[in-house]
């Protein structure tokens, strides 16, 4: 097509062709893509870094030993590689944390999104985000030096050990409240106001509207918040290392000292396990397992959300 032809097509004598090349646009696209690649590459890198020592580990310790025994002590002589005690401890502390954080976090989110005035919300949300920024070592010492003694005083019959899963779990719970509250609040705030009005117009109270319309409509966002919180709780290291200790016992009793997977990694990693030793490889095997557990949960919940969410648009 000739230039003249194109020009007449637009009627103003000016072609619709790009008048000058947009190098800026191209450059930005490349930069953004590189930024996205960094996180993908990191994840892939982690998987590979974990994979090799993990495979080496399982060439020395059989899967049957790893999953078939309940005695854990890779750093002792003789070493034991039954992983269940630290799995159970991890799940237990995560469960305590979730029991604390889900109701409180959701209640806070409902309050902020549905009840609080704009002014209150403007004060509360930053406070919540500050709480999310508190270094976990602070929570750890809080658990060890304040919560455990307090619980020992108030419930002496519990027989709480100086280091125990209960206090650690409680404080891990406090740590993840802001994640749940803040992300859930965002999800609820995104629910169209028309849905609330529709509910109120039928004679529903604020509470019913929140619980039966807003929360279900924000369900996928809320589940995403809880999943992220669970992942953070399961991987939390500092609080459990300080407040729950390093003892590997196979028990469900939360009053006892117990080592989680993350705590074990921190302990072994900060010790003198030399590269290539079995203790060193154990770190990676446990790391891989934690990674897989978190990944499986994410995948599973993503599918669940797909199935049950209420799409509002």
């Amino acid at each position, binding site marked *: 097509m000739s230039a003249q032809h194109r020009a007449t097509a637009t009627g103003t004598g000016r072609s619709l062709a790009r008048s000058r090349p947009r190098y800026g646009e191209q450059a930005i696209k490349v930069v953004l893509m590189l930024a996205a690649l960094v996180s993908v590459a990191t994840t892939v890198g982690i998987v590979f870094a974990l994979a090799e020592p993990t495979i080496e580990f399982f060439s020395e310790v059989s899967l049957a030993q790893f999953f078939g025994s309940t005695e854990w002590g890779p750093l002792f002589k003789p070493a034991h590689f039954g992983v269940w005690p630290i799995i159970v401890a991890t799940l237990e502390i995560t469960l305590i944390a979730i029991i604390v954080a889900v109701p409180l976090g959701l209640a806070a989110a409902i309050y902020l999104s549905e009840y609080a005035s704009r002014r209150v919300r403007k004060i509360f949300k930053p406070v919540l985000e500050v709480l999310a920024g508190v270094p976990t070592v602070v929570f750890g010492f809080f658990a060890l030096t304040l919560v455990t003694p307090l619980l020992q005083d108030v419930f002496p019959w519990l027989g709480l050990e100086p280091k125990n899963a209960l206090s650690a779990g409680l404080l891990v719970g406090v740590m993840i409240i802001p994640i749940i509250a803040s992300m859930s609040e965002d999800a609820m705030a995104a629910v169209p106001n028309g849905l609330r009005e529709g509910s109120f117009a*039928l004679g529903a109270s604020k509470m019913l509207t929140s619980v039966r319309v807003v929360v279900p409509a924000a369900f996928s966002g809320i589940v995403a918040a809880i999943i992220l919180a669970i992942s953070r709780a399961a991987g939390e290291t500092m609080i459990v290392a300080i407040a729950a200790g390093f003892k590997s016992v196979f028990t469900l009793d939360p009053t006892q000292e117990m080592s989680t997977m993350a705590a074990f990694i921190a302990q072994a990693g900060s010790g003198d396990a030399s590269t290539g030793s079995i203790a060193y490889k154990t770190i990676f095997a446990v790391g891989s397992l934690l990674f897989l557990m978190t990944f499986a949960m994410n995948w599973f919940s993503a599918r669940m959300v797909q199935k049950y969410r209420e799409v509002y648009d």
Partner: protein
Amino acid sequence: MSEIGISMPNVTVRGPEAPRNLESLDPVFQVEDLSVFYGDYEAVRNVDMTIGNREITAMIGPSGCGKSTVLRCFNRMNDLIPGARAAGKITYHGEDLYGDHVDPIEVRRRIGMVFQKPNPFPKSIYDNIAYGPRVNGMKGKMDDLVEQALTQAALWDEVKDKLKQNALSLSGGQQQRLCIARAIAVKPEVILMDEPCSALDPIATTKIEDLMQELSRDYTIVIVTHNMQQAARVSDRTAFFTAEVDEAGVRHGRLVEFDETSRIFTNPADKRTEDYITGRFG
């Protein structure tokens, strides 16, 4: 779908089909000197009108003149907007709607509302209908009630095989009829409709107009509409609002004229009404 049919051609006033003695009005709402504020802004000033029992009252007027604002006072929906406030008086069957003893939740249960934009809940069709009765304390299965409400809203035949399907899979017109069914399901005494047909095609609009006629046997209906023909076709009385600029240069919504629909459309008392209706304004 049409037992009641659209027997009336084009712009016929409702009068002949539903002969009523409109003069002897049995008041449901009485509005006296109502002004509504959003913060400091007086959106509507000094409105007086009466809504008759089992009548259809239309509110018309240019955009921004306060029709929705007044409508939302009837079920205290404006309470939910921070800073909104009503002055003056509205009585409902003689009882002060804004009295201290009045529970807005009870008000909204008795006075239902259908919104301009269809707003079904992102739940199943069934659950949308059952929601109102459930939040009002009804328990268990309510298949009959769901069928009844959907039938009344002229939607049953279209959805009876997919009650478990998400309501958002319906078309816009179906969604709006679902919202009407949802409002009917709590058995309100009054239904307020804010431009219920504005997003709909002529066929869906006709269905909803038929439905309103049908419903007006049992319910009192107040409808806001931009469609003059619609007001003429369906309503018994019409309130014409407009926006006026006061001495200070602030715009307020005002009620210009309120009368039987036949009179508003054939022999309006106010020049502004006539201009608006004949299309010389806004």
